[in-house]
């Protein structure tokens, strides 16, 4: 019999998860010598400074070319590149800098985190705490606020979100709530009360910036300012969504083993630059202290105890799409990943 689950953080499934010991539980971790892990966890500024300079450089170049060619068809590829760098590459920058692992220097993580949060339209304080919960209770229904494909999947929501229309609209709605100093009932469950003032300030700043951009567009009689600030979050989101669906979609819920609910997918160097190695997702969830640039080595260190990685996005999507299609009819269906060692129950 298929049952519809309650993904809300204030619903019955959340209560059930707590009762059943799924909330804040102990997760399986592959064995790796402490010295190996320590080596992999080491911080350095070099790779992230290089990648960030390249990122900002490419953003600047594509923006300039886009403005110079504005009004011609040549602007389309320029804004496509700009949009992907703005609305998709910001996803992984937000993520790695939020963990504080991208750079060794703390303020650099903080600075890039704030910039990337704005680009991807994720309020920094809210998402810092929501992501902490995502790591505590990954894909535990009623506990994890970041389950991006809920069962049964909605094709409409999935498709519109390739342009961040669902997530973006939700965030804009919440900005108005946060700006007046309130948070939602779900947010109360994972954000300490003491963080409220930060949320309110950032919401007001975001709204002020967007108001400024709209005023600029009206004054200039052109949509160009919004094409540079604000809209790229939407028109450039598709690659981040394409990547993020490989992370957990179609896999098991309510299991305490990241090998069963996350995917590691091999990707080409260009994708890995945009995605900052988040494609090593099992490894990241198991050892979040390991910086993005060391994830390929971590993968080598623990892969004998992990399910086989996917050899590319195509292989991952060959599994994800049929599974999601089946979940529309049968929400209890999920993909079972083979694990070399037994998973604790």
């Amino acid at each position, binding site marked *: 019999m298929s049952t519809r689950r309650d993904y809300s953080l204030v619903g019955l499934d959340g209560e059930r998860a707590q009762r059943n010991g799924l909330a*804040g539980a102990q997760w399986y971790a592959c064995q790796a010598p*402490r*010295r190996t892990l*320590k080596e992999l*966890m*080491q*911080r350095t500024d070099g790779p992230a400074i290089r990648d960030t300079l390249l990122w900002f450089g490419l953003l600047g170049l594509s923006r300039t070319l886009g403005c110079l060619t504005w009004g011609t068809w040549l602007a389309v590829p320029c804004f496509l590149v700009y949009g992907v760098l703005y609305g998709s590459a910001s996803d992984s920058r937000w993520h790695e800098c939020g*963990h*504080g*692992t991208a750079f*060794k220097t*703390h303020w650099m993580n903080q600075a890039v985190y704030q910039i990337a949060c704005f680009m991807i339209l994720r309020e920094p*304080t809210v998402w*810092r*705490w929501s992501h*902490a919960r995502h*790591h*505590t209770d990954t894909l535990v229904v009623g506990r994890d606020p970041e389950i991006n494909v809920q069962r049964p999947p909605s094709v409409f929501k999935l498709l519109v979100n390739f342009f961040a229309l669902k997530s973006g609209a939700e965030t804009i709605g919440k900005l108005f709530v946060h700006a007046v100093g309130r948070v939602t009932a779900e947010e109360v469950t994972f954000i*300490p009360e*003491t*963080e409220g003032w930060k949320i309110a300030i950032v919401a007001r700043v975001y709204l002020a910036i967007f108001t400024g951009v709209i005023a600029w567009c009206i004054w200039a009689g052109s949509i160009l300012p919004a094409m540079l600030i604000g809209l790229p979050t939407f028109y450039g989101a598709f690659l981040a969504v394409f990547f993020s669906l490989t992370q957990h979609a179609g896999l098991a819920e309510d299991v305490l083993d990241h090998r069963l609910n996350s995917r590691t997918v091999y990707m080409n160097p260009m994708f890995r630059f945009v995605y900052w190695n988040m494609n090593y997702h099992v490894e990241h969830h198991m*050892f*979040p*202290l390991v910086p993005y640039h060391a994830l390929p080595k971590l993968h080598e260190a623990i892969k004998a105890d992990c399910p086989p990685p996917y050899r590319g996005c195509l292989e991952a999507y060959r599994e994800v799409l049929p599974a999601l299609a089946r979940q529309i009819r049968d929400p209890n269906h999920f993909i079972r990943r083979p694990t070399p060692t037994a998973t604790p129950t």
Partner: protein
Amino acid sequence: MTATWVDACDVNDVDPEDVRRFDHGGRTYAVYRTAEDEVFATDGLCTHEKTHLAGGLVMDGIIECPKHNGRFDFRTGKAMGAPACIDLKTYPAKVENGRILVSLD
């Protein structure tokens, strides 16, 4: 009152710039050794969600929690920012005859 020192481990059991778990009296602690060979001790569980800090990363006087990367100054116990918001309890520690001793009073 004189402090009671508890034998935690051999100093060589903890690499420089590293941390090790130490259980005593039904409680768990973390002992740290810095690159300069100083030793420190704190409660063993993160104040955020009770993860063992011994799995974390020691870097320049900071312990980073292995679960959500919360950061504490293990010399003072100070929580350095979200999601680590509550300070960590610290305990005096010293090295004597190659052993790390911790005062748990």
